């Protein structure tokens, strides 16, 4: 469903990667690996459509994403390094805005359920600035709990700042998303225990894609 053809990324003067091709199908997890600075985040941003690759193209359901950016954006959720939380808004309000911009219903009950999934329901009425790093990460990830219907999840280091319990919860959530045919792309430095139809690995350092049957 998501196909990359000969992607190339040049940041400033450095060519981070070139001739990168892969296909991500339903129920598959794509793990992007590589050392710091190898272009993982750049690749993810290209996959979101935020950045145009310097060569090659990305296709969603057979059509180039450049042609229908808005339509493509509706089919993905991106959670990056930054938590995209406003310090002065409460966790609940932050989630509501995120849901509303994602075209989903933003009623409080649904938001609380999402927060509860990651164990931060008690933080709902607290402004984000008083929350700890881990709590903020969980509030950011709570968006995923609201987005089972969105096919493609693109996550940049989602496990960072999470404690063991939250890691397990996230893995459960990812498996639950992959089972009915959702797709997940993520970068992480740790091993991921997720059930998927297949796990692809793109190692930017080695610049090879290997398909591992799960």
């Amino acid at each position, binding site marked *: 469903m998501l196909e990359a053809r000969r992607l190339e990324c040049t940041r400033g003067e450095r060519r981070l990667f070139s001739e990168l091709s892969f296909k991500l199908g339903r129920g598959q997890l794509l793990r992007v690996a590589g050392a710091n600075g190898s272009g993982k985040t750049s690749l993810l941003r290209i996959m*979101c*459509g*935020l*950045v*145009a690759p310097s060569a090659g193209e990305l296709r969603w359901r057979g059509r180039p994403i450049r042609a229908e950016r*808005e*339509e493509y*954006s*509706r089919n*993905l959720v*991106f959670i*990056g*390094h*930054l*938590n*995209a*939380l*406003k*310090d*002065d*808004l409460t966790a609940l*309000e932050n989630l509501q*805005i*995120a849901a*509303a*911009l*994602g*075209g989903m219903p*933003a009623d409080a009950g649904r938001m609380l359920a999402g927060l509860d999934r990651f164990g931060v329901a008690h933080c709902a009425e607290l402004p984000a600035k008083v929350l700890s790093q881990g709590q903020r990460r969980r509030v950011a990830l709570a968006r995923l709990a609201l987005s089972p219907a969105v096919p493609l999840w693109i996550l940049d280091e989602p496990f960072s700042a999470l404690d063991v319990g939250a890691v397990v919860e996230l893995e459960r959530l990812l498996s639950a998303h992959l089972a009915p045919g959702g797709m997940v792309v993520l970068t992480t430095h740790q091993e991921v225990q997720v059930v998927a139809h297949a796990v692809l690995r793109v190692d930017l350092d080695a610049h090879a894609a290997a398909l591992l049957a799960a």
Partner: protein
Amino acid sequence: MIRALGWVLRRDLLLAFRRRGDVVNALVFFVIVVSLFPLGVGPEASQLRNMAPGVLWVAALLACMLSLARLYAPDHQDGTLEQMLLAGEPLVVLVMGKVIAHWLVSGLPLVLMAPMLGLQFDLPGDALAVLCVSLLIGTPILSLIGAVGAALTLGVRGSGVLVSLLVLPLYVPVLIFGAGSVGATASGTGAEPHLLLLGGFLALALVLAPWASAAALRIAME
């Protein structure tokens, strides 16, 4: 789409409300700058009356420009701007929501404060009324043009001063006709042509500026 605009508008208004201090600071800046001029040129009434439209307009312009730093930069820093680019809504709509919120918070208070300051300059009543109307039409134009400048300089070092450099020359027509309308009222020649032209600028800015600002945002986020 309107729903998304409403959400962005509400969000920005809520944020401004929670950081009331920032908003009030800009207003205080307006008052201080206006008060500096009599201190600089002397308190002679007729001279101040002549200067008043220009002084008030320039101060409003500067206050508006200072507040541009709050438009996109905070969202850029915490990652929410990125999410807006990824929302399934047209970016132009979201930009419009932010600009409306910016105007309500930074422009409208200037319109409300201006009569009081105009009295300090001994402007007659009808001139005060025209001043308010000209600011009412003009400050949205300042916000719209400013949104383009703010988007172009997003994340760039020295962006505070750079925005002024980019945006102030573009403000000149608004300044000329805004201050001109008040001057025309004071001298009896009638302000309608000026206000109509300002209205024309506003229409043009409403059509072009959000689109240019959205394009500049995408360029800045690449």
